[in-house]
């Protein structure tokens, strides 16, 4: 059973790895592998040697991802804290609105957000792109963090107050350290979202050297028009997945616990 699940989950990924490492002729006729000598790194060389290099897209995505994550946390933590301190109708209405926004399929916003980019001249600017990304990640981030704050024992803050710590110190020495697991998992989720986001990047970014990974991948021009550039596609998907692979492997505990415990305490 487990083997079957793993085959189902990882099979397509291994296929990609395989496709990226063989010559186009072998790709169409894998029987040739038996003959040997059909493995190649050409797809990777072509991608990294292209102009702009594929590394550039990874960097761009990393920039947007970091900017988005930082901005989201910066806004979400105070918001979650403030929300947790609200009572009654105010709190419920804000939480309902956040839940609605978290459920909203963001693709429906692309045209209006394009309008925003045009009006404020934000197109082709990676840091500016993290503005809508942060906005779109906020609902989930606030909901996650609010639950985490709610789970903190209230006596802690009182005790800290009695100790004479001021607000800033309490935030720094009590709140943030206690929240750090939730912060980590929220950060990962936000980073994943911005790393993978497609429709808005598609409309906000047109310059080749500013493309993020998903848009770049959908635009890869093969080294030759002769072969369907599946080898290049596959190499691109492998390169684009590696950072995420690392991230997931490193933070799997955080993701699992954060997403599950925070999102839906019910």
């Amino acid at each position, binding site marked *: 059973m487990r083997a079957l699940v793993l085959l189902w989950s990882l099979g397509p990924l291994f296929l990609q790895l395989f496709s990226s490492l063989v010559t186009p002729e072998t790709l169409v006729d894998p029987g040739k592998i038996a003959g040997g000598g059909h493995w190649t790194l050409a797809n990777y060389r072509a991608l990294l040697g292209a102009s702009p290099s594929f590394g550039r897209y990874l960097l761009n995505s990393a920039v947007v991802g970091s900017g988005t994550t930082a901005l989201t946390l910066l806004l979400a933590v*105070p*918001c979650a804290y403030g929300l947790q301190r609200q009572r009654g109708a105010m709190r419920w209405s804000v939480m309902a609105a956040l839940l609605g926004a978290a459920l909203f*399929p963001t693709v429906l916003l692309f045209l209006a957000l394009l309008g925003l980019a045009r009006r404020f001249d934000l197109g082709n600017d990676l840091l500016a792109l993290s503005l809508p990304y942060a*906005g779109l990640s906020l609902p989930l981030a606030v909901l996650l963090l609010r639950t985490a704050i709610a789970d903190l024992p209230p006596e802690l803050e009182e005790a800290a107050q009695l100790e004479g710590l001021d607000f800033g110190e309490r935030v720094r020495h009590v709140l943030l350290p206690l929240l750090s697991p939730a912060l980590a998992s929220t950060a990962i989720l936000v980073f994943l979202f911005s790393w993978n986001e497609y429709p808005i990047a598609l409309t906000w970014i047109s310059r080749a050297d500013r493309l993020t990974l998903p848009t770049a991948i959908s635009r890869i021009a093969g080294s030759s028009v002769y072969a369907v550039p599946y080898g290049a596609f596959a190499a691109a998907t492998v390169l684009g997945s590696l950072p995420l692979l690392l*991230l997931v492997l490193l933070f799997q505990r955080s*993701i*699992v616990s954060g997403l599950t415990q925070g999102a839906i305490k019910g």
Partner: protein
Amino acid sequence: MSPGLLEGLLMLPALLLLALVFLWPLGAMAWLSGQASSVLTGLTALPNGGANWLRLLGDGRFWQDAGQTLRFALVSVVLELLLGLGLALLLQRPGRGRAWLRTLTLLPWALPTTVMALGWRWIYNDPFGPLNALLGLLGIGPYGFLSNPATSWLFTVLADVWKTTPFVALLLLAGLQSIPLELRESLELEGAGRWQRLRHLTLPLLLPYLSLALLFRLTQALGVFDLVQVLTGGGPAGSTESLALYAYLNAMRFLDFGYSATVVMGTFVLLLLAVSLALLLWRRSQPHRRPA
């Protein structure tokens, strides 16, 4: 200053950004859906009454896409919930390498949709793709997975299920972990079988998690875009086109922004209807439980 007000101010920056990113766009789209703004007006907006909305009502393609999007959403969400539940139960079972299993099954969900859509495009390739190679070994095929309008949508569903099931499983896993072990053990002592435990203990307690997963997946699936755009481009014969893709094409390819906004708003209305319907059905099926 009343208690809570000051802390309320802490929410302000986030709420401002949310308004900019959610409310303003919705308002702008509602406005634009009442304008002619296309290549024929030189891309300037001119009020045209309700012409866009009239066109939408009579637009066979919009309704066809609505049906297709709904079909995609319902089938993929049901499959994802069923498989996700199974996967969650499997992941919960103690055993060697459980942490690794969780991590590895989670991978498909973490990858960008465009990345995995390209992967599936190759898997489905006719005649060279791996799936057809497999069929070839069995002496069948090749089959045009993405070239048959009657069946292609099923393969977009399959790709979506592959990617999203781990996410659903993860949510449900959290639910499973919240079920106290003692409850299970006491049922076991009473002699309840595995199936009975699932029916009388696990499922009822999992219900909030299931409904949240359902709600979340349903709304996301109704907005499906990346997968379809990269995997099929909406073809063959428009049989996999989703509403979001139609809105995108109207804006970015046909340069008809007024109508694109109308399609977006139309989709929004349908989305609200679908969600309210889902909530209504859910409430009705739960006469004794108040929605928490």
